[in-house]
């Protein structure tokens, strides 16, 4: 017997298990959520590095827990979609109950961390986002209405409230704007992906907008929501929340997004512009929040 094979096999298994646990939290998606959590902290005030570290860790654990529980709830349909087939549960690498337990455990740890070391409002808001994502989006709306993305988008809009509350201990009009910006950003962002993955969603029985309304109407809706988003992103500058640097950035970034959405509607082969909008919208949100921080640091 080769002794080295005895020592490497468990290590390899442990590594795979670790990778699976990490993948349950959807780290790539969380990275943008953390940008929209941490940036508002620097807009709201002057956070200490301990506050930033605690909120980042708490935010990661809460969002990661929500993503893991989401994979537990969606385990019956994940196998029918190419995008989700390789997840730990449908691929048979992890048991459903273990995933649920993991998700609940890290969300509980996040609640304790935020409640004990940051403040109760921050913990309540993070937990609110968790429950909204699991109960309102995943359990209720995702499989019943094409408006799932619109209302469900509120779950992804909690992070800026968490960051804001961590520094100020309260919410105000600027925080509401940060929430609404993500809320109205979600439809054009996610429907670009839904247009591209509609066969997958159809196979899983998820009534995404392109399947129920048709591609053309979905593209129209993307445009209407981009109008709302563009308007909303400019408004915080009017009551003094941000200055001219932010206003100019929001206008330019928003006009580029608007152009991308118009291209989807105009071109007969819309797959390429739809991919572009999906990817650019991610960058758009990160840059918009970065512009808020830069603007605040200049004033």
């Amino acid at each position, binding site marked *: 017997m080769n002794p080295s094979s005895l020592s490497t096999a468990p290590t390899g298994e442990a590594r795979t298990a670790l990778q699976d646990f990490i993948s349950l939290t959807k780290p790539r998606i969380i990275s943008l959520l953390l940008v929209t959590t941490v940036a508002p902290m620097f807009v709201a005030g002057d956070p200490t590095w301990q506050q930033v570290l605690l909120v980042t860790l708490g935010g990661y654990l809460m969002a990661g827990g929500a993503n893991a529980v989401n994979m537990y709830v969606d385990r019956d349909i994940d196998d029918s979609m190419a995008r989700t087939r390789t997840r730990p549960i449908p691929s048979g690498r992890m048991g459903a109950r273990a995933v649920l337990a993991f998700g609940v455990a890290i969300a509980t740890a996040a609640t304790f961390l935020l409640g004990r*070391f940051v*403040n109760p409002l921050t913990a309540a808001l993070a937990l609110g986002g968790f429950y909204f994502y699991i109960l309102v989006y995943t359990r209720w709306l995702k499989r019943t209405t094409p408006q799932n993305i619109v*209302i469900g988008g509120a779950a992804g809009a909690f992070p800026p409230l968490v960051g804001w509350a961590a520094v100020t201990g309260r919410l105000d009009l600027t925080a*509401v704007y940060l929430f609404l910006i993500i809320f109205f950003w979600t439809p054009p962002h996610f429907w670009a992906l839904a247009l591209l993955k509609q066969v997958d969603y159809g196979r899983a029985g998820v009534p995404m907008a392109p399947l129920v309304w048709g591609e053309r109407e979905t593209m129209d809706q993307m445009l*209407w929501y981009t109008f709302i988003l563009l*308007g909303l992103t*400019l408004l915080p*500058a009017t*009551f003094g929340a941000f200055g001219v640097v932010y206003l100019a950035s929001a206008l330019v970034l928003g006009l580029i997004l608007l152009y991308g959405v118009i291209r989807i509607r105009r071109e007969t082969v819309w797959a390429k512009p739809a991919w572009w909008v999906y990817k650019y919208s991610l960058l758009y949100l990160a840059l918009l929040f970065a512009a808020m921080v830069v603007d605040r640091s200049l004033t």
Partner: protein
Amino acid sequence: MSPTLSFVVFFLAAALAVVGQLLVLRDGLAGRTPAAGAGTAARLREALWITIPAIALALTLWATWRALPARTAGSTAATTGPVATLEISGGPR
């Protein structure tokens, strides 16, 4: 930003947002964005889902209008404190 510019940006941005929201409502009411299921209950739920964001937007625009510096500067005598504040306090630690 000058109060005049604030006013101009407010009206342009609010108009853009309101037009977008009205188009969403129009499509919903005209049946262009139907519900996934059949029946009156599904249609009513769908109407509710498009109305909630519209109400949130209207309330936010109203709060923003009340917070405009030019407006508050011109009516300081009429107001007794900061306007358009929404505070949910959790106590910073």
